[in-house]
């Protein structure tokens, strides 16, 4: 990140947060991010976030898993090494279903989990920029970027709007 600076402020209640986010957006300020200790319902809509594509990723992952899992077994039983097991046909399709299913779930879960981590920039060793340690406890923090071209005005404006909403600890943050 470059020198972009932000103003952070927090609220102690999710309802207050919702109200103020609405207010801030109405004032034409862009909100960089909102940090909350738990998922606040309806916040996405207020912030104008799109719905995540994770389900689609999961579907594709699952489909790949299903096809691979099934074909893997089918190939082994009919091409690689066909064996007569208890008189069952080589392509003993019902027998392939359980493993196919498990592969589907496994692939879907993996693809979604890693898509989630990658998309969110999370992962083993990823460093969080911690604005306030209480954010994961009971503080709901809004982060508003400062317009660097008009720094002081921007700061003033933002602080004013935030103070209107009853935000606490409004401060400039690097």
């Amino acid at each position: 990140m470059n020198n972009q600076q932000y103003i952070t402020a927090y609220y102690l209640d999710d309802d207050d947060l919702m109200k103020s986010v609405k207010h801030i957006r109405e004032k034409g300020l862009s909100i960089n991010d909102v940090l909350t200790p738990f998922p606040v319902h309806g916040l996405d809509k207020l912030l104008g976030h799109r719905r995540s594509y994770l389900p689609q990723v999961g579907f594709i992952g699952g489909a790949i898993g299903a096809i691979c899992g099934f074909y893997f077994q089918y190939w082994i039983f009919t091409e690689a090494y066909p064996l007569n097991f208890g008189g069952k046909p080589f392509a003993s399709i019902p027998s392939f279903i359980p493993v196919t299913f498990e592969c589907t779930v496994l692939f879907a879960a993996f693809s979604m989990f890693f898509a989630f981590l990658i998309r969110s920039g999370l992962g083993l060793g990823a460093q969080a920029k911690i604005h306030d340690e209480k954010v994961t406890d009971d503080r709901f923090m809004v982060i508003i970027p400062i317009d660097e071209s008009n720094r002081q005005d921007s700061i003033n404006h933002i602080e004013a709007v935030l103070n209107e909403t009853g935000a606490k600890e409004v401060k400039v943050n690097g």
Partner: protein
Amino acid sequence: MEKQYYRSLDELKVDREKVNEKPVKEFEAEKDVLLDLMEENNFNTSSSRRDFLKVFGFSIASAAVLASCEQPVRKAIPYLNRPEEITPGKANYYASTYFDGNDYCSVLVKVRDGRPIKIEGNTLSSVTKGGTNARTQASVLSLYDNARYKAPAIKGEETTWKNIDQDIQNQLNQLTQNKEKIVLLTPTIISPSTKAVIEQFQQKYPTTQHIQYDAVSASGILDANKKTFGQAFIPSYHFEKAATIVSFGADFLGSWLSPVEYTKQYVQMRKLDEGEQKMSHHIHVEAGMSLTGSNADKRIIVKNSRQKAVIANVYNHLLALSGQSTFNAPETSVDTKAIAEELYKNRGKSLVVSGSNDTDAQMMVNGINQLLGNFGKTIDTSVHLKIKQGIDQEMESLVQEMNEGTVGGVIMWNVNPVYDYPGTDAFSSALKNTKLRVSLAESKNETAEETEYICPVNHYLESWNDAEIKTGHYSLGQPAIRPIFSTRQGQESLLRWTGSNTEYHEYLKNYWTGNLFPASGYLSADKFWTDKLHDGIYETDQSETNINGFSSNAIVNAVSQLKNESTKNIELELYQNVSVGNGTHANNPWLQELPDPVTKICWDNYAAISPKLAEEMGIEDNDLIRIDQKPIPAVIQPGQEYKTISVALGYGRQKAGTVGEKVGVNAYIFSRFADGQRLTWSTVKEVNKAGEKYPLARTQTHHSMEGRAIVREATLKEYQKNPAAGNELHEKIESHHKTLYDKHEFPGHHWGMAIDLNSCTGCNACVVGCSSENNVPVVGKKQVLMAREMHWIRIDRYYQGDQENPSVVRQPVMCQHCDNAPCENVCPVAATTHSNEGINQMAYNRCIGTRYCNNNCPYKVRRFNFYDYTGADALPGNIVDPAEMTLDLKRMVLNPDVTIRAKGVIEKCSFCVQRIQEKKLDAKLENRQLGDGEIKPACAQACPADAIVFGDLNDENSKVSKIFKDQRSYHLLEELHTLPSVGYLTKIRNKEEA
């Protein structure tokens, strides 16, 4: 079946030398099956075939080395020049003769890389006709018994043959000089050349008396025949000619005289092949449940003391029927009239035998057979069975003389009277009164241990021998391996002591060329000898000529003195079972682990008591009881006579080796002499509960079929009306068979096996044969108690009907090789699959031991290696091997064609796939079709009843295909649609009601 019989190694020494003079020829490619196989498998290394052979030679050489001395086994010398008859990896078969004084069998010895590994029946013999019994099958293991005497010993100190010979000769000379009696005590000798050796010995030492001693004798028959025919002999019985068989306690399928021969004969009249409508009717009178009794159509329960009365009554009725004067027969509750009438109807087509040693009883049986005109028809008096020539009175006198101190020396050859003579130490104490005690013994036993001189004899597989089992029926025994230890065969010892230096081999050859060759019609004595050695048998139509006519005077005399014996006491009956027999082979683990065909108990003998008596006395299975103070575990035996307790002989050996010692109790002490004969039953004074438990290892604990159609049966009448009688289910089930997927195709062969439940007598030969062929581990009593025996084939036995006198059915069960096998489906690692020849195959090295297949097998034929029984496991030092089967010595018996299985692996019947492959290759190399019946799995091979037929189901004309189409044919649990490749034929009983 075309089998190549090879002559012995020794015999070929001369030929080999000849071969060696010439430059060694490159072997012909088609002979070297294995090599070609390896090449086919693209072993494209730089090593030549010859190099490979050198390496391969190791295994052969190691065996050869082992056979000669006690050097480390693994040091080996490769064959640079291959002996002519040995192809690495190919087995040779040598004809030989098994006779241990008790059982006779003409056999082929399978020798693989210098080691005898398997005994098979010799089909050329008209006596045993390729059949074997359990003990014959197991005898190969005794060769490698660690309890064998390994070198001559004087007073327990090992010595050289020279020393011991000198000592003994000195002493013998001394005794002869002093005119002191020398006794040569042997079991029945049926070897003509040995008899000549003994005669030679007697000439050298004239005070020598030769006594033949049979622990379980036929002295009664000999005596009776002496009285009625003027000569003590045993005739030839012909069960195959008898439409009605009445046996009074003669267990002729299990232990009486010549069971293999009789089984062969008996089943001829029991088989209902190819639409045969008739079978013999078998009535069996006995007290305990014997193998034969359990096969009878009608089993009449009579205690031993009353059997004579039954015989007398039958005789009396027959006298009446044939219009002769009757006598005052003691009363009996048995409907003897019906028996007599049936016999009378079948004059000349009936056979009455008795297992009793009571001369009177046997004479009456002779009288009955005479009245029925059976002599000359079902009983041949002109051909004598030479087995069991021991006269009990001679032994009795000997002990008396020894006690009196009139016997100077005793040479005991392969006898064990200290163990098997009646009373606890009657013989042992008598023996102490002799000056010279020599033992010619094969392995550790009670008698030898009480002698100063132990001269170890060869195992029969290391020995030359001959036998005349019946008049004119000769057979030869030849060594299949050089003596493993410093042993010498008995004949040779006797020859040495006479001062002769002739090798017995020479002696034998001379005897044959001198005595038998002239009448043989052969032009060359050498040719005669090599031919007979190749065949193993030499049969002539000689007959005994000096038999007097039948005289009934003695019988008349005897019946006039019959008393109405009646006792309320409990009687004790002693019998031999099919495994341990008379006890000689007690140290053979295959036999010890062989479940009794009736009780399914192994590793012990026990007191079989009737359910009623047990209830009265409050005895349960495994309760220790005391019979005249002697503790013995009890087993409740359905069909046992109310007040008879049966105990098997042959157990309770005190000195026999690790396996056989202290297994069970010695029941010989209960046998007794009466009227000059040794009897195997007696009355007991008291029987009481000891209040302890003694767990008996039993391989089958549930005895009812629970009304399931497992063994299907019908009566002969029903069968005659409808060949599918008892098997109606089969057609019904077949018609309902629906499948959700098509059967796999078996384009080449589809192996199948048919088992005739009518023929199977339950003799267990197949079980040992299988163990021997397939290296089936022995697990010991403790593991059997935990139901972990490993047998690949078992004989299920079920009782039906009331427990007073139930009917018995048996069913050999091995892997059914189902085409829809529930076991194959579930193996996660594909260790068990179906071959394209219909075989359910196990890849042992792939198995990880989930036991899932075992659970899923409806037949429960899969066996799991719970411990390391074989030493094949990767982790050393945790072997469970109660029978010492992992000793290098005993491992020599392993069949190299069959992998030994590691701990944690499932194993099971493979249809002897190694035999299938071998025969297929043979046929391929010879560029011909594989013939039907050419392949015989070990069980089918061993079966004396020919109950098991193996072949190709894809071949319409094969015997097995035909049997499968028989209306009696069905599959076990066929309603499960497992599509087994094993079929059974319903059991048909020749009796009135179902």
